[in-house]
């Protein structure tokens, strides 16, 4: 068993060594394709987490002018509650919101000495999501209201970004992956051609088809695995650096939900590369290795 394993490993190594330029082409293309796919997967995961973290589609946030008194706020709250489409209105007083903000950013900036810049906020919840835009528009007409943020719009924006990432990332990554797979297929096909004598000798002495094909399949798996490992390292490192840079520039981004765990990318992408490489190589051996 060990002798057979050693023979197959030796044959795989001989295949890999035999055509270095083609191996490099297959590995680098697989790597680029997997970087794109890995990045797209990470971005999609982040956007999905962001969409999940947003208030539901039934809510709108109503920000009043900072000059509005508490009495005027409560009056407006009562008017909104009287609307038939509205299920609930919650007041977030400006002093409560300011305390929350100070707590949230206490490690990054000292807000204690600053005057409170925040207005009162009303969170309006409707019975049916589709009535939210109309309710938001009616509330926005009030002279007390500075801005109405409709969470549906935010959700749409995030989902739109997710769609873009999905189509562009997966489309480009998919095309590159296809070319990587064809390159792996071609590399294995060329190796089979280059090692035709070995294949013939093995076939004539009575080696099983599996023994003859396995080294070539392993070659494809190694190409996919190497491409995947390099891609995973590059993806995780660049995502980490990019995230660090963006948070340093825009501290508010710290509140974004966490992205795909790096461990998952470091394990998942090489495995994906290995499986796809193995499948491509199997396809090539089924076509070109016969006895």
């Amino acid at each position: 068993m060990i002798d057979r394993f050693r023979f197959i490993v030796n044959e795989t190594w001989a295949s890999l060594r035999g055509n270095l330029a083609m191996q490099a082409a297959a590995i680098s293309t697989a790597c680029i394709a997997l970087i794109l796919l890995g990045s797209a997967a990470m971005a999609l995961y982040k956007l999905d987490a962001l969409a999940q973290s947003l208030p539901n589609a039934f809510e709108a946030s109503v920000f009043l002018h900072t000059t509005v008194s508490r009495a005027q706020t409560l009056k407006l709250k009562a008017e909104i509650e009287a609307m038939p489409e509205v299920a609930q209105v919650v007041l977030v007083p400006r002093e409560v919101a300011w305390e929350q903000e100070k707590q949230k950013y206490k490690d990054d900036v000292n807000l204690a000495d600053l005057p409170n810049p925040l207005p009162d906020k009303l969170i309006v919840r409707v019975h049916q999501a589709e009535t939210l835009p109309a309710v938001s528009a009616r509330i926005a007409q009030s002279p007390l209201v500075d801005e109405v943020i409709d969470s549906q719009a935010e959700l749409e924006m995030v989902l739109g970004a997710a769609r873009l990432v999905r189509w562009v990332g997966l489309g480009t990554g998919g095309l590159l992956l296809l070319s990587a797979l064809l390159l792996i297929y071609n590399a294995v096909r060329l190796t089979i051609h280059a090692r035709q004598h070995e294949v013939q000798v093995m076939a004539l002495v009575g080696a099983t088809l599996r023994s003859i094909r396995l080294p070539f399949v392993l070659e494809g798996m190694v190409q996919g695995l190497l491409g995947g490992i390099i891609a995973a390292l590059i993806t995780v490192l660049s995502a980490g650096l990019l995230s660090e840079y963006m948070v340093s520039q825009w501290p508010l981004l710290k509140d974004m939900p966490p992205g795909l765990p790096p461990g998952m990318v470091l394990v998942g992408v090489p495995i994906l590369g290995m499986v796809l490489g193995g499948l491509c190589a199997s396809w090539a051996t089924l076509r070109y290795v016969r006895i």
Partner: protein
Amino acid sequence: MRSETTKAMVELKGVSVAFGEQYALRRVNLKVEAGEFVFLVGATGAGKSTLFKLLYGALRPTEGEVWVLGQPVHRLKPRELPYLRRRMGIIPQNYPLLSHKTVWENIAYGLRAIGYSEQAVRQRVAQMLALVGLNEQARQYPHQLSGGEAQRAAIARALANNPPMLIADEPTANLDPDTSWEIIELLLRINLRGTTVIVSTHNRTIVDRACQRVVAIDRGQIISDVPRGGYPIELERLYPSVAL
């Protein structure tokens, strides 16, 4: 209907091989018993290599049955062929030794490919090198060998698994007369140890000198089968310039 199995080493029953309209073999019947030494002679393109390929399953007959070592090769599945080939030593015409491996490694390669342990490989390779007289050339690469030495190494590789039958397609092609005879002598010695040997050739001198069974084939048909004789007169008449 399933045919009867046979006890002969090789039995071809009404075998034809056609490539489109062209017949490479036509209704060939042949039986080779255990321990025989058979020359298969004929001009280039007569059908010798096609017949050999049928024996080890590289080709399937268009019609008829091919039995080798009791196995119906004509209906074996690809996954069953390797187990038949392990019981046959095959020396094809166009697959020389692996150029980047030494003689020792070339012989070991085949054994490793079919799962021999390293200890068994060392033992078998040593026996084969002694059998073919290549002990001194064990560490040499094919380009360092003479034509005869390379052919002896190929014979050693084919015999390494101790098969009961050896088939050699034109083993003396491109060899000078003395070296050709050396190779045939080696094959005769192997035959005396009990191995059935089938050799294809169009070398008249060695066929005459060896005085073994001679089966002549021409344009895909067996035209003579002499138990112990020289190069068939029928072929000499047909191709006087081919037979050396």
